[in-house]
C-alpha cells in the first residue's frame, strides 16, 4: 500500500468517515435474476425473425409473390401509358415580344373605354430611358463635332488599310 500523501493526511477525517460507511449489498436472488435476464435475451435473439423472413413462410410465399407481381405490372403499364413529348422532335415555342403583347392589351382597354386612346395609353405605359435611370450625357455642339471628326478619321483609316491589303 502506498504511503498517504499530504492531501490524504489533510483530509484524514473525511477519508476515515467515507472508509467506514456501511457497505451496500446486492439483493437476494441477484444472480438468479441476472441469469434469467441473460437467458431470456438469448432466447429472444435466437427466435427473432427478420421482417422479410415472414414473407418466405410457405403459406405466405404465393400471396406475397402475387402481390409483388401486381405492383410491378402496374408500374410498367402506368409508366408506358404516359405520353411524353420528345423535346428533340417538337418545334420550339415562339417567344412573343413584350411590345406586341402590350399593344394588344392596350387596344382592348381603349375599346372598353372609348375616352382613352391606345396612343395615350401606350405613352403612359411605355418605358423610356429616363425611367430606367440611364446615365444621360448631354454633348455640346463642339464636342459632337469633335466626335464626328474622330469617327470620320477612323472610317478613313480602316478604308485605307483594307484597300492596301487587297
Amino acid at each position: 500500500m502506498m504511503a498517504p500523501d499530504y492531501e490524504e493526511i489533510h483530509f484524514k477525517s473525511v477519508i476515515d468517515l467515507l472508509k467506514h460507511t456501511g457497505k451496500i449489498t446486492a439483493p437476494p436472488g441477484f444472480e438468479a435474476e441476472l441469469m434469467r435476464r441473460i437467458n431470456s435475451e438469448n432466447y429472444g435473439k435466437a427466435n427473432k425473425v427478420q421482417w422479410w423472413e415472414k414473407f418466405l413462410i410457405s403459406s405466405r410465399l404465393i400471396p406475397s409473390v402475387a402481390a409483388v407481381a401486381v405492383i410491378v405490372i402496374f408500374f410498367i403499364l402506368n409508366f408506358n401509358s404516359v405520353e411524353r413529348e420528345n423535346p428533340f422532335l417538337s418545334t420550339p415555342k415562339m417567344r412573343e415580344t413584350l411590345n406586341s403583347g402590350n399593344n394588344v392589351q392596350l387596344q382592348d382597354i381603349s375599346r372598353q373605354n372609348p375616352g382613352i386612346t391606345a396612343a395615350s395609353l401606350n405613352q403612359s405605359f411605355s418605358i423610356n430611358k429616363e425611367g430606367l435611370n440611364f446615365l444621360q450625357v448631354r454633348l455640346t455642339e463642339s464636342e459632337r463635332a469633335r466626335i464626328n471628326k474622330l469617327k470620320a478619321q477612323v472610317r478613313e483609316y480602316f478604308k485605307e488599310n483594307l484597300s492596301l491589303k487587297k
Partner: protein
Amino acid sequence: MTDKKLSDFTDEELILEFQQNNTIKAYELLVQKYKNPLINYVYRFLGDYEACVDIVQETMIKVYRNKDSYKSIAKFSTWIYTIAGNLARTEYQRRKRRNIFSINSMKEDDETFDIPDESMRPDVITDSGIKDEIIQKALLKVSDAYREMVILRDIQELSYEEIAEVTGTAVGTVKSRINRGRAQLQKMLKDIYKD
C-alpha cells in the same frame, strides 16, 4: 477443469476462461465477486437502490455479451468499473434532465411530490445508521465529477492510476478532483467528524 481450480483463478484468468471456453462458472464467480462492490459504488453515486441494482445487472450482462472485447492488457476490475461507471453516469444525466423537466412542470401546475426516502429501506440501512444517511446525502451534493472519483478512491479504495483508467482522466486531474470533492465533503460533514 474443476470448480476448485476456478476459484483459485485471478479475475483476469477467469474472464479469459470465459472468453476462450465459454465457462459459465467462471462468469458466475466474477459476478459473485463484483456484485457487491459495484452495487456499493453505483449506489453511492446515484443514491437510488433500485436503479443501482438495475445498472449493476446491466453491467454484468454487458460483460457476458461483450466478453470478447476485454483485452488481457487491462485489469479486469478497471474494465468492469468502467462499464458500471459509464452506465451510472448515463443514468445520472438522464435523471438530472428529468428532474429539471419535472421541476419546471411542477412550477406550472403547483403540484406536490412525495420523494421516497431510499435511505430508510431495510436493505439500505447500514450499521452506522443515521451517520451513513448523512454521509450519503452529503455525497450526493458533491459535484458529480468529483463525487465519482471520491467514491472510487475513499470508499472503493482504488488506486489513483486505476481511477484514471476507469474515468479516462489524467492522474493529476484525478488527484485534484478528489481533493476538491473531499474539501466539499469536509465542509458539509464538519459536524459529524467532530463527534
